[in-house]
C-alpha cells in the first residue's frame, strides 16, 4: 500500500501564483518529512524539510505546513517561477534510515 501519497500527479500554475502541493501519510511513526525537487535527468535535491514537532517551516519562497493529527502536509511555493517547473517528491522517514517517497507531482509554471 502507498505509505506516502501525493494527491496530484501534475499541477499547472501561472508565473507569480502560489503553487500548493499536497501530501499525506499513513505511518504515525514518521517524524521527518523532506521535500525533494527533481529536474529531468538529474537526481532529487533536498528543497526543504520539516520535523514532526513543528507545524510550519519556511525557507524563502518555500513553506511546509504540517498537520500531525490529520497526517498531511503541504508545500507552498510562493511567486512561482518557470524555473520551479520540476517534479516534487514528498518523502517521510522514522528515525532515519530509509526514505519513503510519494509518487511525485509534476509542476509546470507558465509565463
Amino acid at each position: 500500500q502507498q505509505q506516502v501519497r501525493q494527491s496530484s500527479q501534475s499541477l499547472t500554475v501561472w508565473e507569480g501564483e502560489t503553487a500548493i502541493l499536497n501530501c499525506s501519510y499513513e505511518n504515525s511513526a514518521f517524524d521527518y518529512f523532506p521535500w525533494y525537487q527533481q529536474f529531468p535527468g538529474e537526481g532529487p535535491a533536498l528543497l526543504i524539510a520539516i520535523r514532526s514537532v513543528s507545524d510550519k517551516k519556511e525557507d524563502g519562497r518555500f513553506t511546509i505546513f504540517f498537520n500531525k493529527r490529520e497526517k498531511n502536509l503541504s508545500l507552498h511555493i510562493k511567486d512561482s517561477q518557470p524555473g520551479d517547473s520540476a517534479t516534487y517528491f514528498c518523502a517521510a522517514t522514522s528515525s532515519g534510515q530509509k526514505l519513503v517517497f510519494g509518487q511525485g507531482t509534476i509542476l509546470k509554471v507558465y509565463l
Partner: protein
Amino acid sequence: GPKVLQIPSHQIIDMGQMVTLNCDPVSNHLYFYWYKQILGQQMEFLVNFYNGKVMEKSKLFKDQFSVERPDGSYFTLKIQPTALEDSAVYFCASSFRRNQDTQYFGPGTRLLVL
C-alpha cells in the same frame, strides 16, 4: 552543496549479465543508500549500508543484489545475474548521520537490461 557522483550515467546490458553500479558519496558521510526508480514511478528504497554492513534492505533487494564499499572507495551495487525487471534508474545517496539527516542524491545510473 555536497555532491554524490555516480558512474556510469547509462548502462545497457544483456539479461543474465552482471553489472556493477558505482557511487562516490560525499567525503565525510557515513551512511549510504541505494534507491530504484522505474520510469514515471516513485523512488523506492533498496538498501542502506553503514560501517561495512547492510543495515536494512527492502523486498526489492533480491538475492541477486549485493553492496559493498571496500576500503572507503566506491560504494557499489552489483546485480548478478540481471533480469529484465531490473531496468530502472538507480540512485545512490549518502548522509552524515542517520536520524533526521539530509540524504544527498547522485544523478542516477540509467540501467537498461535487454
